[in-house]
């Protein structure tokens, strides 16, 4: 990646140089993220919570001689659904808006790179940084489980890690959408928080109220609930653990019996759709918005 290679690519951007530009931005983003206070704080908070939840959920099972990884997962699930979207949305929201507020966006876009390359590079870099942060938290949590529970299911834990990373990337792209339309970090973060509140609490609570008031049928309730990426994530993890959603009552049982083996793929599909569509929206909005 010498200076010559980049400069020769200026007149006619080739895919190769585009990829190089994206990777350059990604590396810069990883470096910036890792050295930032935000990253250290998030990693620390997530690690402490993951380890704490693992310890607490194992404490109850110790007396009876069998360890329930399912309980640990249930505890971790709640914590993940609160913390990880918050981390990812905040990271995404701050990305482009931050450059814009500092005035560095002007500087970056003066370089021979396209807006899309900048966006993708930032996305990739933040995603990698987030993944690393989650890996550290889960690694410590797995260490606690290995030391205390022994027979805990490593494959199930790995599945949980994979799903959580997917959730982080999805929420990151939602955060990018917020970021490209915001002028200031404060605004972007505020909107990000609102999105977080809406996805984590408001939509579920509203759907619960709707289920009671409108007497929603199970299939309607399930489909509407599944469209929320957080619910899709939760159901995906539970399906991987239990091979069935019967933990989630009539609606879950309906889903398991109707969709069977395609259910996990449906849920992953919902998550991927959220991620891809959000990122595409961010790209389109960023290119349309001519102001810097």
């Amino acid at each position: 990646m010498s200076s010559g290679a980049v400069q020769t690519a200026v007149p006619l951007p080739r895919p190769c140089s585009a990829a190089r530009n994206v990777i350059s931005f990604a590396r810069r983003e990883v470096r910036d993220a890792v050295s930032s206070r935000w990253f250290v704080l998030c990693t620390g908070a997530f690690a402490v919570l993951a380890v704490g939840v693992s310890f607490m959920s194992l404490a109850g099972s110790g007396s009876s001689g069998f360890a329930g990884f399912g309980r640990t997962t249930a505890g971790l699930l709640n914590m993940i659904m609160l913390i990880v979207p918050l981390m990812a949305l905040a990271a995404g929201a701050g990305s482009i808006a931050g450059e814009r507020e500092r005035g560095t966006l002007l500087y970056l876009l003066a370089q021979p790179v396209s807006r899309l390359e900048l966006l993708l590079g930032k996305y990739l870099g933040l995603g990698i940084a987030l993944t690393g942060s989650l890996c550290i938290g889960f690694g410590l949590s797995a260490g606690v489980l290995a030391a205390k529970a022994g027979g805990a299911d490593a494959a199930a834990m790995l599945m949980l890690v994979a799903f959580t990373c997917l959730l982080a990337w999805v929420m990151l792209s939602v955060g990018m959408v917020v970021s490209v339309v915001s002028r200031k970090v404060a605004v972007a973060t505020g909107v990000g928080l609102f999105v977080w509140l809406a996805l984590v609490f408001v939509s579920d609570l509203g759907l619960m109220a709707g289920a009671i008031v409108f007497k929603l049928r199970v299939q309607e309730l399930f489909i509407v609930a599944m469209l929320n990426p957080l619910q899709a994530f939760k159901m995906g993890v539970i399906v991987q653990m239990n091979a069935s959603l019967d933990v989630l009552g009539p609606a879950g049982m309906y889903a398991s019996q109707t969709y069977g083996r395609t259910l996990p793929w449906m849920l992953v599909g919902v998550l991927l759709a959220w991620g891809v569509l959000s990122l595409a929206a961010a790209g389109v909005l960023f290119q349309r918005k001519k102001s810097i």
Partner: protein
Amino acid sequence: MRRRTVGILVCLLGVALAPAGEGTPESQARPVSDIVALIEAAPAGATVDVPPGLYRGSLRVRRPVVLLGHGQVTIDGGGQGNVVELLAPNITFQGFTVRGSGSGVDREPAGIRAETGPVIIAENRLEDVLFGIDLRTASNSVVRNNVVVGKDMDPGRRGDAICLWSSHECVVEGNRVRQARDMVFWYSENVDVRNNEVSDSRYGLHFMYSHNTTLRDNHVWGNSVGVYLMYSNAITLIENTMERNRGPSGYGIGIKECDDVEIRSNRIIANRVGVYVDNAPLSQGAFGRVHQNLIAYNEVGMLMAPSNHSQQTWNNGFIENEQQVATNGRGNLLANEFHVDGRGNYWSDYAGFDRAGDGRGDVAYVSQSLFEDLMAREPNLRLFMHSPAQQAIEFTARALPVMLPQPNFVDEHPLMTPPQVPGRTVSPGPTGRMGALCAGLLVAGALVMLAGTEPISRMQGARS
């Protein structure tokens, strides 16, 4: 010289015949009339050793004999009707492999059907049969150490692995059942059911109008319902294990309109519902007792109809059930007792303390949860379990007591330690894989950290 020749001949003959005795190719199959001829030739009560091999057809035993297969005799019904019928008392049928009954439910074809008792059916293996062992008015019989594997069909179309119909004073022990409908007891009293294993079936042990029975040391897992008692009185369950009975019913133990049921020292683990109680005890003055059990990791530890009354539940360990005790419909369980003689249950979510040091909490355990109350009203809301929204609702109810529902029940004397329940302890698996996962994740995290601290001056040079 001559003796040596004879010896060599005998050896050769032995070598030639040996494979024929071990393997039973299709051409070697014999009709069951060969066995019938042996039975007819034997005096009553005699022992008949059936020669090893494969026999085809339906066997009807009409004389009291001891039939021994020594595990080397296979009787194949060829998919028609009953395979073996025991039509006389005092027959022993032991050590056979029985397979290929009919599959139409209208005539309930069975692997082994006994029309009269007492008979002894032991150490047989039954495969590809609709009903397995079917005792009809065969009192004082013994069904011991048989293995029954049902037909590979939809659960609703399968037959019962072991069925007792009006057969009293029987012993059913050490049987292993898989992929069947039920192990079911109809109108059969004083039956001793112990040490059986039932898995991947509909109802593991199913009692209909069968009174005065003890179930001991049975292990039922992966069924729709572990043990289902219906309209059966004076049943005692001791030291059984019910695990992972899930699905639409999904009860570890279900009790429907039974009097005098005692459930003691069982391990009820990871079922959808641990103990389901529907109108038990039913009669005035009858009891229903659940004590000394381990009820752990179920979605619902105990599910009771609000109309239920006088059920006594004490000295149990309720550990980490998603819902410890739930109401089936709106209402409460205050008509039931959750503490007897000053001893309640151990609740893993109990937040009280024991200053007196007598092993009992000084503050009552009160079951009241807004989300559970909402779920009792609208069961579909269980879809939102394990989510922050559920926590938000619970938090709201705690913060604003006006939102709290009426208590479901109150345990005045909660225990501080769970009871010791004998049983199999699950040995923890190897820690290696989890350790490897831990190391792998930490290395991945560290790599990202290192990538971040790597100088990228070249890249900056390119840009400037």
